[in-house]
């Protein structure tokens, strides 16, 4: 019974990791951009939501709704004015720029918010749970997982069934020919990053409600997010969800054996999958 419980907890944790990873998957899939500041951007969004909560006293979900457009604009501007300038065949410039951004963000937040641990209060929701027969699950993890599924579903619909999604896929395939179709790749990339920041906002909401956070915890989230994306395979959003689930389950199983092993088993699962499938489980045909 305890193992079933462990696996279920792991799956739900995977939902959180998939939320971390969704935006990354989108951006990585469209422009091969490795954004090393992604984790810190999640923390940044969490702090922003906290600020809105403190200013308005509203429910955190509403505050996230208010913060989302601001974060979209931030992501759009970041891509348009900074990251677009370093995109190219060389992976090093975007890696280094986002590395710099990561350090700048962490320390900026440290100065403004101090190193104190924070939490987004969600009231009764934090400890509520529901009986699902053989296991009892917390409402919060369940909501998180459900949100992850919803976000991935929505992103997928955009990606495969909308004109914007066509533009995403075409620009990712061949930016020059896409421009011959009247599409401005720089604009497409900027919208993609903006969209990614919206998913980051949702991820930040659930992260902040679930556990304490402070300016330094970004990079750890980044690793889990990347592991989920890479396990899933380039360009596969459902793969990212599966990747998150695999990392989540590996972590909870590891923690069950020995609490000190939680993070380690997650990493080992990642390495094992990559050993067998260097391009992930569901990579796109085109790379």
């Amino acid at each position, binding site marked *: 019974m305890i193992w079933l419980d462990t696996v279920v907890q792991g799956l739900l944790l995977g939902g959180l990791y998939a939320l971390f990873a969704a935006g990354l998957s989108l951006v*990585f899939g469209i422009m*091969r951009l*490795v954004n090393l500041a992604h984790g810190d951007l999640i923390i940044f969004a969490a702090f922003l939501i906290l600020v809105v909560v403190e200013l308005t006293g509203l429910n955190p979900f509403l505050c996230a709704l208010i913060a989302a457009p601001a974060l979209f604009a931030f992501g759009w501007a970041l891509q348009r004015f*900074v990251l677009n*300038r*370093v995109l190219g065949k060389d*992976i*090093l*410039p975007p*890696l*280094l*720029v986002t*590395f*710099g*951004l*990561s*350090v*700048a*963000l*962490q*320390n*900026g937040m*440290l*100065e403004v918010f101090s190193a104190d641990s924070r939490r987004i209060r969600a009231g009764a929701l934090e400890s509520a749970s529901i009986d699902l027969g053989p296991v009892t699950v917390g409402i919060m993890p369940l909501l998180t997982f459900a949100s992850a599924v919803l976000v991935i579903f929505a992103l997928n619909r955009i990606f495969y069934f909308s004109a914007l999604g066509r533009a995403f896929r075409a620009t990712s395939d061949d930016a020059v020919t896409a421009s011959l179709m009247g599409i401005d790749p720089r604009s497409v990339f900027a919208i993609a990053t903006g969209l990614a920041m919206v998913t980051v906002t949702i991820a930040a909401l659930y992260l902040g409600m679930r556990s304490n956070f402070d300016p330094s915890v970004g*990079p750890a989230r980044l*690793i889990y997010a*990347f*592991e989920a994306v*890479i396990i899933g395979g380039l360009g596969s959003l459902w793969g990212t969800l599966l990747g998150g689930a695999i990392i989540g389950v590996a972590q909870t199983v590891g923690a069950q054996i020995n609490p*000190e092993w939680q*993070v*380690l088993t997650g*990493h*080992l699962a*990642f*390495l094992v999958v*990559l*050993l067998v499938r*260097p*391009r992930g489980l569901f990579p796109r045909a085109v790379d």
Partner: protein
Amino acid sequence: MMQVTVTARTRASTLAGVAALGLIGLGVILPAFASRSLIQDLFFILTMLTLAQVWNLIAGYGGMVSVGQQAFVGIGAYAMFAGVILWGWDPVPAILLGGVAALVLAVPMAFFAFRLQGAYFAIGTWVIAEVTRLLVAQWKTLGGGTGTSLPREATADIIGVDALARLFGLRDAAARDVLAYWLALALAVGTMAAIYALLRSRNGLALAAVRDNDNAARSVGVDAVRLKWLVFLAAAAMTGLVGALIYVQTARISPDAAFSVTNWTAYVIFIVVIGGIGRLEGPIVGVIVFWGLQTAFADYGSWYLLALGLIAIVVMLFAPRGLWGLFADRTQIALFAVQRRLVVENPSATPRKTNGKAAP
């Protein structure tokens, strides 16, 4: 018939070579009159310089962008600690254990990472470094998660410290610093000499070819796989030696510190980027700038780091080849003669030198 030879030497490089010898000589006798804090600063500069040159080799010249070199710093340091604490070695020879341990770790890391490309490779190396850190943190004998220090008996008795103390009239602690400094100087000079030799050799030319276009290089017979393994392993060993040396000086270790992404990868990458990636002169410029910033602004804590991050962004946007790159592009000067040129001699006329620049 025309005589064609390949040469790399320039006037600037010859001058620089002479100057370098002079600098090294100065460096050796420096402890005779330098203050202790200067020696300590130079230790920091020299060790960071070595790490930066090595990272520049694999990423800038080899095209292997690793974000996991901290694995080798950490394992090197821990191997040295193991030698001292578990087997009673003197810390200085135990440094060699660091190089060996890093080499051993590099084998599975390369085996795994070379299956991956580009961004996947980078993340893969980072994860492996994390796994190493987590595993080492389980090693209770060496302090587990909280770490440990070198035992007093070991640090009090390091080879050569007594002789140094008497030679320079210093106290033991200061003499240890001098010994560490000399080792760092030897390591820095040795590493740069080795890298320079590699780049001047046929393997160096092959490495540049692999970086530019893996498939094309293979099609002309370059054994890209063997070359990358060679460079990666050598880099790991050198990094391991530096890691061990750094922790001989610090004498206190913990997994978080020894495997720190910030100190051993972020700062190193900053140094290479700001100085200029893909050129030997770059890290030298970079480490001086970095040390200068560190000295002037370290008191400002996170403002300093924030500024460092912003500087990295600005440099990559506007000077992607770094400060040295800006300088070299304007003046065409190279201190390390690595760029090959054709010298064409026509027996019926005076010899002419052509600059071997191909059309893009």
